[in-house]
């Protein structure tokens, strides 16, 4: 399905290009405008969709497993808010308007926010329990968001960049940024893969997990690092695209049952499928204009999520 969607994403756009011409141009790029559209616009946005979708899907699955909360998504730990602050700081305070400037600041913001949430969440007795992390995440998010609002009030130029970024789009960053951020996401994916088996025992409860020989604290730390790399990278590249991290793990669980290794794998495939499908839809509904993927995902994701919840009770994790 993902392969099919990727091909569709290259073939369809606001500008109609005949399928045989698309294939011809894919194999033999010429200097034409259509060739430019396919190679410099549609291919990169498809790649962004695949990488970011997979990262968000995995981050979501991991988050829900780690916190044993079916409604957890990467935003819960302050990642989106941290990245937002990074974007606003870039243009607002430092005056960096270079195209790629904001990616690294968004990434750094996400990492910093996550670190702060962990520091707050692990303070006091009992270490970093899911409930404490969620509370710390909510508090840090609120703090960062108010900082973002304050900065935006003072700086109209920062607002322009922020507004675009906050909608969520696969076309906001130059194609080269993907290769720069990809290693971080890859490390995150590897960490996620090694964490997944431990999540299965964690699902039985903390006590049982410990009895089975899992170092619960270590699992959470490693999982948290994976989520940060995955979601931080995705958010830095394409903005806080909602719902992918929330909905996809539920869909994956529908196919796979409770084994986190399979959930993670399916999420990595279903995430990009949803993102690409939404992006393609966004190109087609408003021709010759287009809707950005963040809007379409939210519009499609919300009713879908409600349907999912109504059809079968969300599994206890």
């Amino acid at each position: 399905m993902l392969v099919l969607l990727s091909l569709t994403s290259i073939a369809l756009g606001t500008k109609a290009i005949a399928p045989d011409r698309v294939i011809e141009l894919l194999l033999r790029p010429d200097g034409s405008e259509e060739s430019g559209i396919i190679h410099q616009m549609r291919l990169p946005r498809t790649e962004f969709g695949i990488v970011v979708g997979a990262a968000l899907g995995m981050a979501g699955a991991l988050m829900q497993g780690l916190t044993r909360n079916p409604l957890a998504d990467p935003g819960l730990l302050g990642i989106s808010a941290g990245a937002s602050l990074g974007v606003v700081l870039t243009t607002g305070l430092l005056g960096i308007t270079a195209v790629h400037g904001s990616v690294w600041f968004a990434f750094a913001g996400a990492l910093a926010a996550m670190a702060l949430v962990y520091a707050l969440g692990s303070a006091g007795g009992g270490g970093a329990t899911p409930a404490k992390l969620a509370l710390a995440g909510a508090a840090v998010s609120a703090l960062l968001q108010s900082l973002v609002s304050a900065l935006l009030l003072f700086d109209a130029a920062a607002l322009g960049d922020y507004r675009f970024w906050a909608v969520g789009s696969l076309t906001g960053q130059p194609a080269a940024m993907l290769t720069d951020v990809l290693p971080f996401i890859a490390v995150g994916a590897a960490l996620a893969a090694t964490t997944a088996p431990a999540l299965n025992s964690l699902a039985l409860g903390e006590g049982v997990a410990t009895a089975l020989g899992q170092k619960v604290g270590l699992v959470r730390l490693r999982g948290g690092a994976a989520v940060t790399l995955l979601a931080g990278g995705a958010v830095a590249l394409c903005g806080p695209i909602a719902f992918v991290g929330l909905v996809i793990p539920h869909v994956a669980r529908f196919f796979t049952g409770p084994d986190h290794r399979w959930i993670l794998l399916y999420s990595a495939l279903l995430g990009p499928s949803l993102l690409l499908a939404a992006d393609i839809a966004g190109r087609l509904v408003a021709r010759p204009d287009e809707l950005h993927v963040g809007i379409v995902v939210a519009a499609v994701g919300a009713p879908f999520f409600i349907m999912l919840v109504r059809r079968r009770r969300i599994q206890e994790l």
Partner: protein
Amino acid sequence: MPLFRSTPAIESAQAARLDRRRFLALGGAVAATGLLAACGDSDTGKGSDKAATGPWSFTDDRGKKITLKKRPERIVAQSHPAAAMWDFGIRPVGIFGPQKTADGGTSPQVGNVDLSKTTSVGTNFGEFQMEKLISLKPELIVTIAYGPMIWYIPEEVIKKVEAVAPIAVIQLMGVAVPDAVKRFGELAAALGADPGSAEIQKAKRDFETAAAAVTTAAKAKKGLSVAVVSGTKENFFVADPAFHGDVKYFRQLGLDIVKPAKPEAGFESLSWEEAGRYKADLVLEDARPEGGLTHQQLGAYPTWKGSPAVKAGQVTDWQTETPFTYQRFTKVLNDLAGAVTKARVDVV
């Protein structure tokens, strides 16, 4: 796209940059109210009392008649009308709207206004430092409008501002530059300026000479098509000559301006894939430093880089921030005449 509409605060700040989104969001409202019809109305302000004493009245472009006991002396104006009236010799005591560029220089939007001789009462859309405004004891507040959209005085604050002093609104949507300048002149005259002074008459002649140069250049380049555009990361915009007073004027001067098929309040918004939809020999590209992409950034898009005008090197600045005054607009026209003269007509 009204879909993108966000909170009033965000929208306001957007509009502060004369943001296209705002224009777009405005679309339906403009069409519905048909306020444009009011712009062409001949002015009743001319009949106002020229003497500094005695009752004074002026009917603004909303059709609102402002009556005062005497001619107002203390004016607070938005950047654009402040610049327009400044060149007619009116010196506002206060100013609101854009005054500085991001790097601290004087914004082109204030034209010839000497910022050290006037007091700022706010710079962002809807931002009024009320205490400052009141302490200036203004007798009249002047701003412009694009359709029903009162510039820099959103609905939320209009009551508060109006309580300080009456607001005179000059309509600019679809008003060609010389008509707008004339209208500003009428308001300035009502406020005691003399548009017939030798200095202003000379500025007017220079403006007309520059305009004639555009016409001559356009005649010499039969078949030259011109598109007026702007690009953001989100979209590519093609300007509607019926909306923008400057573009409308370029058309009146004989340039063949590309008219987008489905403009919404000033622009047709296109996806970047579709940026090549309207072809033109010469492209005027939004020169504003904020809110749009620079020439260099535009180069990242194949549909821009590969477009005929860009390949032929026939892209020049669209000076959207220049206030409509004889003095300031003469240069815009001369530059345009120069660009047209240099342009090849066989690009598309």
